[in-house]
C-alpha cells in the first residue's frame, strides 16, 4: 500500500505545490493520475519513489518511509519518469547490469515484451529512437515484477500500435498485489486501462474514485446536439457530436469518458462531487 499523509511540498519558498495532501493507494488497482500542467503529478511520483523529500508529512510505501530510500523499498518500486536515462548498452547488457537489483526480475518476460514491441536487439539503447528507448524501459520495468509500478507519461513517444501493445501488456501482466500509477495527459490512450481516477488540483486531491463508481453515479451520453438536459453536469464537443455527463440514479451502464470526466471535475467540481 502507498500511504501519503498530510504532505507538504514546495520547490521554492512561498510557492507550495502540495498543502496537506492525503492519499491512500491500495494494491490490485491501476490508478490514473490526472491534473493540469504544473499541478505536481510527476512530483508526487518522485516523492513516492523517494527521490524528492517532503517538507512536512509522510510518504509511505509498504512498511517503508520513502525518503529513507531503503533497498527493501526500492526493489519493490519501478519508476519510469518522463525523462529517463538509458546507458550506451545493448538490451542484453542492460539487463545484465540492472536486473540483479530486482529479485523478481523475469528475463523471459523482458524478452517477450521486447519482442512484442519489436525493439531491435543488437543495437545500443542510446542509439535507438525515442519510442524504442521508451519501449525498452517499459519492458524492463514490467519484467522487474515490482509491486509498485510508477509511469510518468508512458505513452508519450509511442507509435499507435505500441500504445495498444502497452495497454495489452499492462493488462495481461497485472497482478492483484500490484499498484500501478500512470500519470498522463493522454487519457484516451489509457482509458480502458485505468481502474481508478485521481485528480490533483491546487496542491490537493480533488477527486479519487474507482471507474466503476463513476459509472454508477454518472451517465455518459452522446448526442449530435449541444442541447443538454437541465440536470446536465457537463457537456463538451467530441468528434461526431457532444458528450453529456448526467446524474445516473438508475445506474444505467455507459462507457466512462475520462477526458470529459476530468474536464467536468476541473470546471464543475462542486456539482460532480455532490454525486459521490
Amino acid at each position, binding site marked *: 500500500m502507498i500511504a501519503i499523509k498530510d504532505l507538504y511540498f514546495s520547490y521554492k519558498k512561498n510557492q507550495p505545490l502540495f498543502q496537506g495532501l492525503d492519499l491512500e493507494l491500495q494494491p490490485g488497482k491501476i490508478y490514473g493520475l490526472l491534473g493540469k500542467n504544473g499541478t505536481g503529478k510527476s512530483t508526487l511520483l518522485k516523492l513516492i519513489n523517494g*527521490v*524528492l523529500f517532503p517538507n512536512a508529512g509522510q510518504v509511505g510505501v509498504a512498511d517503508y518511509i520513502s525518503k529513507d530510500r531503503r533497498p527493501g523499498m*526500492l526493489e519493490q518500486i519501478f519508476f519510469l519518469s518522463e525523462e529517463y*536515462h538509458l546507458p550506451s*548498452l545493448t538490451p542484453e547488457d542492460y539487463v545484465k547490469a540492472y536486473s540483479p537489483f530486482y529479485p523478481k526480475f523475469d528475463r523471459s518476460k523482458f524478452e517477450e515484451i521486447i519482442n512484442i514491441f519489436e525493439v531491435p536487439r543488437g543495437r545500443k539503447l542510446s542509439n535507438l529512437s525515442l519510442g524504442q528507448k521508451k519501449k525498452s524501459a517499459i519492458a524492463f520495468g514490467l519484467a522487474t515484477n515490482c509491486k509498485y509500478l510508477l509511469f510518468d507519461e508512458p505513452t508519450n513517444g509511442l507509435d499507435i500500435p505500441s500504445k495498444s501493445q502497452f495497454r495489452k501488456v499492462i493488462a495481461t501482466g497485472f497482478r492483484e498485489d500490484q499498484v500501478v500509477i500512470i500519470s498522463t495527459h493522454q487519457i484516451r490512450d489509457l482509458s480502458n486501462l485505468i481502474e481508478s481516477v485521481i485528480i490533483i488540483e491546487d496542491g490537493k486531491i480533488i477527486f479519487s474514485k474507482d471507474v466503476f463508481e463513476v459509472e454508477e453515479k454518472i451517465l455518459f451520453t452522446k448526442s449530435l446536439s449541444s442541447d443538454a438536459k437541465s440536470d446536465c453536469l457537463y457537456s463538451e464537443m467530441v468528434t461526431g457530436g457532444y458528450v453529456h455527463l448526467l446524474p445516473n440514479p438508475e445506474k444505467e451502464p455507459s462507457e466512462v469518458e475520462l477526458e470529459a470526466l476530468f474536464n467536468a471535475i476541473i470546471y464543475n467540481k462542486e456539482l460532480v462531487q455532490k454525486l459521490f
Partner: protein
Amino acid sequence: MDFSITRLFNLIKKDFIISRKFLLLLIVSLVAVCALLVFFTSDGVPMNSNQVPPDAGEIVFGVLLIIGGSVITATIFREFRNPPERLKFLSLPASNFEKVFSKWLYTLPFYFLVVCVIFIVGYPLFSSLIGSWIDVEYVHLQELRPKYFGYLGLSYFLIHSGIFMFSLFYNRFPLPKIIVTGFFLAIAGFAVIALLTRIIFYDHFQGFFRGTELMFSKQLSNDFQIWMEMFLVKLPYRFAMIGVPFIWLISYFKMKEKEL
C-alpha cells in the same frame, strides 16, 4: 544503515558493465602519462652527469596518484550530472551507504592499487627504455625512497577525503567547482595560519610584516614549544585518523539527503 555484500557486488558489476571502455581508456591513459612523466623527469639531469635525480620516481608516482586520483575522485559521481541519470542512480535498489561505499572503493583502495601496479611495472620499463634512448640513468625501483612514497600515500588519503565529499555536493561540473572551492579553502586556511603565526610569533613582527627570523616567542615555555613541534609533525596522521573518517561520515549523510 543497510549493507549487503551482494548488492555492493551488483553495484560494482553494473559500473563495470557500463564503464568498461572508460576503464580501459583510463588504464591506457595512466600508462601513457607514466611514460611521459618518466621522460620529462629526465630533464632534471644535472650538468656533467647522466644520473636522473632520485625524486624522479616520486614525481611520477605523486602525479599519477594525487593529480590523477583527484580528477577521478572529483568526477566519480557522474550520475549526478543530469536529472534523469540522478533519478536512476538514486532510485537504484541499493542503500545510500552501499552507493557511497562503492564509489569510495573505486577512488581510494582500487585506484591506489592500480597506480601502484602501473608504477611498479611502468617505471622500470619506461626508465630503462627512455634511459637507453636518451642516454641517462634513472634510479632503480629498489633504490627509491619508500618514506616519500608513504608521504604521497598519506597526502592522497587526506586530499581524497575532501574531494570525495565535495564531489557529492556538486552535481554539474564538479571538477572546476572543487578546484575553486579548494582555492578558497586554501586562502581561508592560509589566512588562519597567518593569523595564528602573527599571534604566536608576535615579537618577530613589525605591523603585518615579519621583522626577524621566525622563532617561537621567548614568552612561550620550552615544553609548549616541544609540544607544538610534535603536534605539527603528527597533525597529518591525527587528521588521517580522526578528520578523514569524519569527512567520510559527512559524505554518507550528504548522499542520504541527496535529492533529485
